[in-house]
């Protein structure tokens, strides 16, 4: 009662060689409508497009961990003095959100109209607003210190510093990416790849969204 392990070969049409565009398919596995099961179309995105989302997933997970830690930490102690958020934080928020706006303007100028020079100016604006954000965060820390709230003063102050500092560190990384982007736009022949622009922009916008989230958590929990 031995049963054949494989079906007999398909003796119909032999395998057609794949067309020039046939490729892996990115995160989708696609077989073309012409029914030939031996080829696929190439929809592979450039790796940077996938990579940035993978990276953002990891960053999201890290901040999810920080958030859980904060929630569990708050729930396990009575010693959780309320922290009045320094007002400069709201100004910083405005700067960061505006920088997303300027980034979008820059990005569209570059990709749709090829206006490299104009785009560069708007990228500089983004960089500038980003720097304003980071220095604004620093002044928030200075303000807390002037109130006697340091990193180790209380659990709530600790979380304030850690969350804002880790976010600011990531923003600095984003500033590095933006600088690299501007450098690629400078000079006689711009060498900026669309996938790099995409990745950098995604990252920067994510920093803004992340900050809005953190601000909400800090405002609610601290």
């Amino acid at each position, binding site marked *: 009662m*031995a049963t*054949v*392990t*494989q*079906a*007999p*070969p*398909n*003796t119909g049409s*032999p*395998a057609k*060689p*794949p067309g020039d565009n*046939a*490729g*892996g*398919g*990115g*995160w989708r*596995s*696609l077989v073309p409508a012409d029914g030939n*099961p*031996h*080829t*696929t179309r*190439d929809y*592979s*995105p*450039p*790796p940077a*497009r*996938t*990579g940035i989302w*993978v*990276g953002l*997933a*990891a*960053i999201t*997970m*890290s901040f*999810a*961990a*920080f958030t*859980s*830690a904060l929630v*569990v*930490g708050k729930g*396990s*102690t009575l*010693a*959780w003095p309320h922290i009045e958020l320094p007002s400069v934080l709201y100004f910083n928020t405005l700067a960061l959100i505006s920088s997303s706006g300027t980034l979008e303007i820059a990005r569209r100028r570059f990709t749709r109209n090829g206006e490299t020079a104009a785009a560069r100016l708007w990228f500089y604006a983004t960089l500038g607003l980003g720097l304003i954000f980071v220095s604004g965060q620093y002044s928030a820390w200075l303000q807390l210190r002037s109130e006697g709230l340091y*990193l*180790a003063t*209380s*659990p709530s102050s*600790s979380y304030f510093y*850690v969350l804002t500092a*880790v976010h600011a560190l990531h923003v600095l990384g984003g500033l590095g990416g933006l600088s690299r982007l501007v450098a690629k736009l400078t000079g006689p022949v711009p060498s900026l790849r*669309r*996938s790099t622009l995409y990745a950098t922009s995604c990252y920067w916008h994510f920093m803004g969204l992340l900050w809005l989230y953190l601000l909400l958590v800090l405002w609610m929990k601290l």
Partner: protein
Amino acid sequence: MHDHAQAAQHAAPTGFIRKYVFSLDHKVIGKQYYGLGLLAVLIGMVLSWLMRIHLVWPNTPIPGLGLLSKTGAPGGVMTPEYYLQLMTMHGTLMVFFVLTNVPFAGFGNYFLPIQIGAEDMAFPRFNMMSFWTTFVAFLVLMAAFFVGDGPPLAGWTAYAPLSAVGADSGPGEAVGQTLWAISIAIFCIGQLLGSLNFIATTLDLRTKGMTLARMPVSTWAWFITSCIGLLAFAVLLPACLLLILDRVAGTSFFIPANLVVSDHLQPHSGGSPLLWQHLFWFFGHPEVYIAILPAMGIISHVLITSMRRPLLSHRVVIACMMSIGFLSYMVWGHHMFVSGMNPASSLAFSFPTLIITIPATILTLIWLGSLYGSRLQITAASLFSLGFISMFVSGGVSGFFLAQPSIDIYLHATYFVVGHFHMVMGVAAIFGMFAGTYFWFPKMTGRMMSEKLGKLHFWLTLVGTYCIFMPFHYLGLAGNVRRYSSFVDDFMKPLMPVHKFMTIAALLTGAAQLIFLYNLIHSRFRGAPASANPWEATSLEWTTASPPPVDNFGGKHPVVYHDPYQYSVEGAAKDYIMQDSPEPAAD
């Protein structure tokens, strides 16, 4: 003209440094990870010998140990604290630098791009950075041996407050513990970069015709592992940061108020020790699946070639690996059943823990069912793969006890747990590494390993590891507590003969590994030349030269016409059809 996905093109490197040290080539990076893992496993194994020798011959001086640490082992006789310090380093090295490095980063880096027909990983520079970051983490960890009063003694799990309050809690808890935390944080970054590469490469760089369904099972295992790893290490990194802050910056994330350690009232307040456990195990449990899934992928891949037939169902195997990956995030509390967390949570965690038995059982049944009716070839690689199945069953079955909170009341923190995780991680996963080595060595080096020595290595290791680790379970049933440097309790002293048996088995089995080492090194230089496809296997790595050229396929882009396991196809000329062969195959 659309962006055709390809790895960032890099020219063939010149010069020794570019070729072998700071190389962008995933094959070199894979070998570097493997080499680092080999170094780590040797150190880790020696540490385990030291531990086992101390347990049964506590007053016998160990030659040379006094040189490593004058305070830890004066005159070569180990102190209780040094036992714990060596134990901590043993666990840390093995779990992080061996089990995450070799089956995943080592073999995965080398073979994932080739198995999907790509020239390299998606981000070669990130790839190079990931290895060197891991190497720096290794150096920072090893530095703990040589500082102050030595390595930390809090175990690889580093529970707070023991690990958080600093020097007051014991020797090694000052600089040593801080170095540990920094090392692991750096390690996390290396792993995140690595996972990023694996995921982007798998999704974007598959060659023509290589749909996700047509990827080999080993590639799937690496892909799923990298997804798990991305999220798990992203949680461990914040945890380590908070621990470092508690230690050096006076914060109290994990330290509550009113602790009196070594007569000092600690200046911390407001923290939660359980928070560390939750964060750590949220990483820690997926970590053990990161250790085992690549081994499952490797032995499946090896067995398919050895059996001359595909597994009963490719899709079911992949679905099982995916569900194990998914469930691994829901079970972390089973390490904390009696930790003081809400007992209702313990019950909640036990259910997904028990449920994870289902995909594990299905996998085992599929492996067994695929053996039925096959034409199994016995090689060193296939023996280790079969041994994996045996070990996985043994280790998995003890997990069944530990998954139930009421039974865990008795078995928690006994040698039963130690036996369980050593069988699955310390043996089964290692068998996966051996299987991968024997199988892929010809491809990586262009030379064959000695099959005779490989088989001898297998027999000694199979019997040896069973002799070492089976008795752990019996000791656990008797209540033998773990992480003890000596057994002075009334009920543990009578168990010493079992411990002696285990120690001798460990030393003998350790010695047997020299056969593997010799085989590895000797074959590297003197092994018989290997053809491109010595095992008559079908996946893409066997279509190219041994070793592959720098761009893997010598300028060609392979085209794939069917799934990778066309073995014993009825009516075909040979009993295998390469994946890049347009020859009609079964669907």
